């Protein structure tokens, strides 16, 4: 325990002792708990807690559901706490305090009125809504209100201020009600857009957030990131940025700022040095991503200009570490959600939390034509069991007793806040289909003067976007299934020799300790090489009995019962068994692996109950049902012929596994696959099983017993203990769904929608909790409809749209030539921007690249996507297959970091003043920001690379890694904590990231000039690479394409 922090540096002898590893992991674990950082630990605590959310203690009381035994995953974590509980206060400091961040204020500050002015603006703001001119004015507004509170420029935070939530600023005068912004305010900038483009300012829908208000404030900001600032800055510092933004708005303000066309003044950027800095806005975006006012970003990209673009002013993501407080509806209007990647706390005020369901566009186009004109996609990303923020109110559980939840008799929609009661409450109109139903007698309640039921606020189902109904018998085909965990471990020669088996056994052994020990938790275990070995865990004697199924063509389960046993009854056997498996097979010389057969056999054992099947596989399945061949090698050998068909390697080789998987799903068996390998294993084929059954693929390549054991354990632990449900039924039938699963639903118009009405979406998930209760989680989202294109652009949700783009691309990779998929990505990007340019920003000069504020990062993400593992042509087949698999169910908040990882410098941690957040400000992914003296950490939610430059000071190396020179770095890297502040900070950062990503991260150390260094460099997506454009080049490319389309 010398090093509390993490795994100890040890010299692992060739035949390392698995237990030693295990111990290390435990240490790690412990440490993390202490520090609260461990991604794995804290957040996941679920086992005991309520099904899903881990509510902060305070809420517990209110919890209808099973009372969380008080083990609150997050609750206990003081460190985190700051962000959460104390939000309001923190918020404030967050921005302002950070000296660097101060830059932010500039935008505001720059505004016409001096700081003091803010107060003033606020007032106007209300009126502002309508008129655009106000971009500025409005600007102030938003901030104004907030400002008033704190006096800080920044906006958002204030809104949170205690009590502020609604009453405060947002509650503007009348129309303003919609002003959701306070929190989001800035981001809302899009509104601005809407108003801008068309002269329809008046029309601006308040729906969106106070359009007007929002407009002003939000808009401006985004622009800043860009060049806009330079020019503008000079004049009225703040103003300039904005001008550019609202193309629509432009007319009035636009001109003044029109300057944005930087081309000419590229240099100028430089001049106002201070500004660019601020411009970075990192803070700004961070806050309210959208940034304040500017709806657009425009960049002039003349050929000539291109070289002169200041990279620093290119639109970039600037994540904020501050927490946003988000109310799902304000003033009876849907409140556009904060960016998926930001840290936010949701208050469910009618619409469901964006965590559960978010739409690519936060206003629904009334017609297909409108939608197709926009070139955007209308889709919902549904993650029904997403983890809530610890500070959020838990989901209410509603029990309607015998009769079950009230539902529409026609469309079977569930009762929700948008159902309209009429006729003194005797009838209600379904918001989903419009049918009028009689209110069940015992559910009847009179209506108040406002037309709402008098009990609406007491009934969660009438005031919350997400509730859980207790399912009645009619929702159960059978008794709720027990929580069954079946572990299947590869013990073939390679698995044994690489230590994968030992790692798996030790991981399982530790994880079992975390499983709830109720009578409903059942466990089974089997190993396999060329035969399958089950274990009878229920025996009188001290030892389990091994049951070998030798027939791998026609498999079966050797026992009806006793292969899967209540955990409480077999814990001891299980522990003994797991400890002895690695030695038992020590001398195994069987190279063959009967993966398909083993999975099938395990399935048969679980068939009667369903459950989770966790498979640890180390080699290419070579025997029995569903055996595979080394297609990759075959493909390579006749590459000339195979080039066209290259993507075929990304498709499953045949239907065998698919057919099996469909059957698994039917019987509620979910397969998770942990691939610990040194070679090609044809993930494209293997992954079909987890994908079809709602499971997950984990990929450790090349597996290293030293550095991957801890991750394996933590992945497994999270997999098993995270909040999850079984036997789920949604629109899509899927056997099992957990909090990391996201489902994308594309929407199509059946009919025209009425302007001014709202459109509702409801997702009902019927599932069984790990505690055996049958529940229906109903999330309802009601969004306004619009006829205005500009509204669409303003309310576009970049993260969600990009997630859709990514998922679509991923799903196409196996079936289409790579070039085509890549082109498609760029085309989507171009089409959207073109549509915007053509219909909403007509005024701008053709030399400018105009980006809608809400989508300003689209090109950057698109480029990053093109350079991602999945769309790179030089990747290993397995890596790409894994990527596709990983991406498809990926929750929106993790999509962005996956393609555009977060990079931070860690060599200078000691020198930096970190405003409250543990994680320092990220660095753009460009070599320009890398120095030879530096050490950088780059993470994408799955992998974590630590890059060590050539000339790092030895004392830093010593502090961080306990080595004196770069040459000593080993590939088998384990992060350890040494007794110095640098090392502690690094560990804290890594643990914080882990917690945040709910992922343990695969740590790798990269050296400059080494293959590992190349890997690292390949993540720097803004750089020019042999096969890809640099960010600037890409922008120019897009710009030209748009130009040519315009012409």
């Amino acid at each position, binding site marked *: 325990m010398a090093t509390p922090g993490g795994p100890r540096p040890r010299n692992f002898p060739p035949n390392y002792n698995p237990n030693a590893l295990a111990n290390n992991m435990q240490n790690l674990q412990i440490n993390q708990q202490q520090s609260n950082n461990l991604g794995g630990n804290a957040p996941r605590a679920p086992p005991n807690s309520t099904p899903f959310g881990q509510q902060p203690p305070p809420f517990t009381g209110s919890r209808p559901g099973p009372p969380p035994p008080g083990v609150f995953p997050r609750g206990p974590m003081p460190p985190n706490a700051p962000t959460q509980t104390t939000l309001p206060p923190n918020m404030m400091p967050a921005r302002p305090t950070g000296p660097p961040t101060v830059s932010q204020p500039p935008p505001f500050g720059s505004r016409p009125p001096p700081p003091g002015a803010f107060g003033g603006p606020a007032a106007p703001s209300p009126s502002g809504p309508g008129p655009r001119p106000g971009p500025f004015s409005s600007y102030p507004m938003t901030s104004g209100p907030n400002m008033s509170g704190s006096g800080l420029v920044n906006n958002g935070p204030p809104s949170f201020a205690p009590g502020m939530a609604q009453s405060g600023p947002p509650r503007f005068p009348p129309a303003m009600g919609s002003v959701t912004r306070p929190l989001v305010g800035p981001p809302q900038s899009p509104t601005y857009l809407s108003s801008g483009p068309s002269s329809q300012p008046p029309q601006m829908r308040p729906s969106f957030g106070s359009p007007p208000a929002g407009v002003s404030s939000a808009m401006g900001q985004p622009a800043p990131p860009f060049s806009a600032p330079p020019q503008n800055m000079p004049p009225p510092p703040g103003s300039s940025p904005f001008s550019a933004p609202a193309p629509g708005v432009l007319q009035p303000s636009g001109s003044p700022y029109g300057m944005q066309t930087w081309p000419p003044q590229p240099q100028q950027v430089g001049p106002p040095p201070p500004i660019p800095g601020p411009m970075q806005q990192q803070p700004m975006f961070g806050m309210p991503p959208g940034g304040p006012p500017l709806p657009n970003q425009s960049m002039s990209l003349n050929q000539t200009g291109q070289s002169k673009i200041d990279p620093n002013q290119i639109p970039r993501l600037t994540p904020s570490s501050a927490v946003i407080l988000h109310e799902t509806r304000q003033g009876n209007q849907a409140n556009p959600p904060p960016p998926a990647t930001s840290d936010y706390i949701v208050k469910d005020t009618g619409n469901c939390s964006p965590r559960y369901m978010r739409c690519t566009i936060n206003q629904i186009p009334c017609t297909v034509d409108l939608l197709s004109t926009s070139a955007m996609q209308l889709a919902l990303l549904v993650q029904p069991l997403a983890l809530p923020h610890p500070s959020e109110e838990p989901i209410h559980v509603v029990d309607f007793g015998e009769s079950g939840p009230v539902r529409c008799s026609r469309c079977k929609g569930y009762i929700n806040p948008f159902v309209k009661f009429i006729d003194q409450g005797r009838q209600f109109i379904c918001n989903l289909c419009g049918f009028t139903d009689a209110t069940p007698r015992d559910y009847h309640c009179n209506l108040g003067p406002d037309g709402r039921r008098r009990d609406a606020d007491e009934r969660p189902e009438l005031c919350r976007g997400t509730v859980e109904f207790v399912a009645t018998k009619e929702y159960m085909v059978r008794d709720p299934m027990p929580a069954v965990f079946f572990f299947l471990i590869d013990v073939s020669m390679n698995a044994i020799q690489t230590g994968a088996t030992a790692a798996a056994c030790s991981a399982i052994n530790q994880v079992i300790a975390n499983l709830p020990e109720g009578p409903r938790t059942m466990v089974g275990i089997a190993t396999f090489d060329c*035969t399958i070995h089950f274990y009878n865990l229920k025996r009188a*004697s001290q*030892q389990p*009995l091994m049951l*070998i199924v*030798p*027939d791998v063509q026609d498999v*079966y389960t050797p026992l009806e019962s006793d292969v899967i046993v209540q955990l409480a009854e077999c814990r001891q056997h299980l522990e003994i068994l797991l400890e002895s498996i690695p030695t038992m097979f020590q001398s195994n010389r069987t190279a063959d692996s009967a993966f398909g057969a083993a999975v099938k056999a395990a399935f048969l054992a679980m068939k009667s109950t369903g459950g989770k099947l966790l498979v640890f596989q180390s080699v290419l399945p070579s025997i029995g049902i569903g055996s595979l061949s080394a297609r990759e090698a075959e493909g390579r050998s006749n590459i000339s012929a195979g080039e066209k068909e290259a993507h075929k390697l990304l498709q499953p080789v045949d239907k065998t596994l698919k057919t099996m998987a469909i059957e698994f799903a039917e019987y509620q068996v979910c397969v998770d696959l942990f691939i610990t390998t040194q070679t090609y294993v044809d993930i494209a084929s293997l992954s079909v099983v987890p994908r079809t059954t709602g499971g997950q693929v984990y990929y450790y390549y090349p597996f290293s017993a030293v550095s991957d054991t801890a991750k394996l354990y933590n992945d497994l632990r999270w997999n098993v203990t995270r909040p999850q449900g079984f036997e789920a039924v949604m629109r899509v039938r899927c056997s099992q769904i957990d909090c990391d699963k996201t489902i994308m639903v594309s929407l199509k118009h059946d009919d025209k929608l009425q302007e001014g009405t709202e459109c509702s979406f409801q997702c009902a998930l019927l599932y069984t909790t790990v505690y055996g209760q049958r529940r229906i989680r109903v999330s309802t989202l009601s969004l306004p409809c619009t006829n205005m294109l500009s509204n669409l652009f303003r309310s576009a949700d970049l993260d969600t749209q990009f997630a859709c783009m990514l998922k679509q691309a991923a799903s196409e990779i196996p079936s289409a030539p790579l070039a085509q998929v890549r082109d498609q990505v760029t085309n989507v990007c171009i089409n959207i921007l073109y549509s915007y340019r053509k219909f909403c920003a007509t005024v701008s000069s053709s030399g400018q690249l105009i980006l809608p504020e809400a989508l300003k990062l689209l090109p950057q993400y698109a480029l990053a996507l093109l350079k991602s593992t999945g769309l790179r042509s030089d990747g290993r087949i397995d890596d790409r297959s894994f990527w596709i698999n990983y991406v498809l169910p990926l929750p929106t908040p993790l999509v962005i970091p996956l393609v555009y990882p977060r990079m931070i410098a860690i060599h200078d941690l000691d020198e930096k003043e970190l405003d409250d957040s543990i994680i320092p400000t990220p660095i753009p992914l460009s070599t320009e920001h890398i120095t030879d003296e530096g050490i950088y950490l780059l993470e994408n939610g799955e992998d974590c690379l630590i890059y060590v430059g050539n000339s790092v000071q030895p004392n830093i190396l010593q502090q961080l890694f306990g080595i004196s020179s770069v040459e000593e770095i080993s590939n088998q890297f384990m992060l350890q904590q040494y007794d110095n502040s640098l090392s502690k900070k690094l560990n804290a950062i890594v643990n914080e990231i882990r917690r945040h990503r709910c992922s343990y991260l695969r740590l790798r150390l990269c050296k400059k000039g080494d293959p590992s260094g190349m890997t690292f460099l390949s993540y720097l997506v803004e750089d020019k690479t042999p096969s890809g454009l640099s960010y600037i080049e890409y922008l120019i490319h897009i710009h030209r394409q748009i130009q040519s389309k315009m012409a």
Partner: protein
Amino acid sequence: MERDSEGDKWNRFWEVKGAYRLNFRTLTLLYNITAPATTQRQFTLHHRRRTTVTMAEFLDLEIQDSVRMPWNVLPGTKADAANCFIPVSAVYTPLKPLPATTPLLPYSPLRCRNCRSVINPFSIVDFSSVNKIWICSFCLQRNHFPPHYQSISDQNLPAELFPQYTTIEYETSANEKPQAGSSNVFLFVVDTCVIEEELGYLKSAMLQVLGMVPENCLIGLITFGTYVHIHELGFGQIPKVHVFKGTKEVTKDQLLEQMGFFANRTRPTTGVIAGVRDGLSQESIARFLLPASDCEFVLNSILEELQRDPWPVPPDQRAARCTGTALSLAAHLLGVCVPGNGARIMAFLGGPSTEGPGSIVSKNLSEPIRSHKDLDKDSAPTYHKAVKFYETLSKQLVHQGHVLDIFACALDQVGVAELKVAVEKTGGLVVLAESFGHSVFKESLRRVFHSGDHDLGLSSNGIFEISCSKDIKIQGIIGPCASLDKKGPLCSETVIGQGNTTAWKLCGLDKTTSLCLIFDVIKKESPDVLAQSANNQFFFQFLTYYQHGSGQMRLRATTLSRRWVAGTGIKDDLISGFDQEAAAVVMARQVSFKMETEAEFDPIRWLDKSLIHICTRFGEYQKDSPSSFTLSPRLSIFPQFMFNLRRSQFIQVFNNSPDETAYFRMILNRENVANSVVMIQPSLISYSFHSGPEPALLDVASIAADKILLLDSYFTIVVFHGSTVAQWRKAGYHELPEHQAFANLLQAPRDDADSIIRERFPVPRLVICDQHGSQARFLLAKLNPSATYNSDAPAVPGGDIIFTDDVSFEVFLDHLQRLAVQ
């Protein structure tokens, strides 16, 4: 020509044929008393004194040569033989213990270089020439003695030439030392689809037996139910079981592959793969088959933890039991591990096979298990398939030299009828009982492993060969053996049983295994036949190689000579050599065989016809005068044997299930003459205060209120208390000191029953019952129904009547006499 003396002796012996002609009915009754005698029981049952002179001759012959022949003087021509109706045949017990005086020869026998028969006392030896020569009695080939025989002379004979050693045993060359793997192998195959109680009985019986297995024997264990579990006994860390699906047949190759016999080495690309010699590692074999001393602990713990088959059985279904697959896997396992070495699969079956190949009934309880009626009507859907499966299995086992033993213990049938072929061809043991808790099973199982006085003398891997004179051919063998398909000039065109060969495999054989050899006399009638009286001998030689229980290979040679007669006037000669018991047994085996193999065969008609022909041919009568009919004493009991055979379980199958019938016939086919006769015609002994134990008529008239009867029908032993005796006993008189005599009376039949039980395998069921009790049926069913419910004569006081419409023996004889004289 000294050798001839042997044959002459017999000829002379038969000259002393019966001068007295009793009324054959009287004699029959007398015989009944004495017939069931076996040599051993003569010693133990002191009351059997009146063995007729006639039988003693045959018994002496049997003691010397382990052979009984219906015709000890043979009909010399094909026509004569056809006229005899009972074939020229022999019931031979290859491993019957030899008289203690017979030496075991520690060398290999001399064999004729032409026909490979073994030198014997009938061989003519020429001591005179420089190079001593012996002439083969079968092919007349002149053979030189090898050098080490040079010292022999008529004063200095090797044991195999001693006249009294017509049967002698060689222990083949000492260099063939028993190898490591050549000790006996027992592979237990245990049914777990039984109720808890039965499993408990079975476990305790097996645990008890494990302690009795000789240390050097290898043991393996397979359990089965819905699936087959092959247990690894030699795996150190945790108990390990290979599980095979019950519904699927697995080939030997698949087994080799799937059970990892090549896990750590490459598989030879060609050649038979089996056993250590073929490249399997000793370790891979030792996973499954371990010396008893090494695996006793593991085996004990496995057995103790053995659970019932865990798969649920719906209430309207039979348990899924895959007997066929289990046995097939057992055969594969032995075939892979110890091919060619003696090994026994001991199957403990607790119910019918319902799953996979060889199943005998569907799982659905609404479908009853096949009865004889179903088999007759050919409406047993699975029967032929199952039989075919077990035939294939038997071929495999025979090829490997392994034995299948069946212990079938269930109230229901388990499929013995289908399994019969595999058991019989491999020479396996079979025990049928109602429960694993029943003493028939427990005691029988113990007997298998028992060593000492009454051990079974289990041997294995036998090969049986016959040589005989050129005018005789071999039709086949009815008995527990399998043809080795060694065809030759000695094979008759008529085939019965295992025929068309001169060599047979006896995978398993023991001290009582008896083969019924059936011959064909093919000599054509010719004028000069009779003239050559000097040459009127037929020679037979039976050679049995086998692996003795000690693991050594032995060869037993029995050489026989019989005189033949031909032409007219040979009736008396033939009668003088007629062995009625042997004849009855041969008839019983023949008729059983025909019932099983010939469609539409009517056994009653066939038996009656044969009997009538024999009576017509060998009786003394005036045509058409039934009352004038008499039979020679050598033949006189034969009609009664036939009467009882007609009523026996071998013919009257409808009282029994197909399993029982198969069981009875398998035992009949492997037992010696004496035991078989008891099966055909039970013995009855009466105990009373008036006299010592004495044989009683097998007739309902023997029942008396103050007597105790002991009936031995081989499979069942009944102690029957007359009603008065039963009352006394119930009153507890035997516990009073003044009634010691009564206690002795009660005890005497029990003691006798015990002594029978001790030496018999399978252990018979003991029924102790009282007159008029329900169990009394076991006795009544076997008695001659001379007094029935509709007979005119009133029952004797204290006697009994039988409720049957069967004809009594008297009626049967009347008809026989009438028909014989027509």
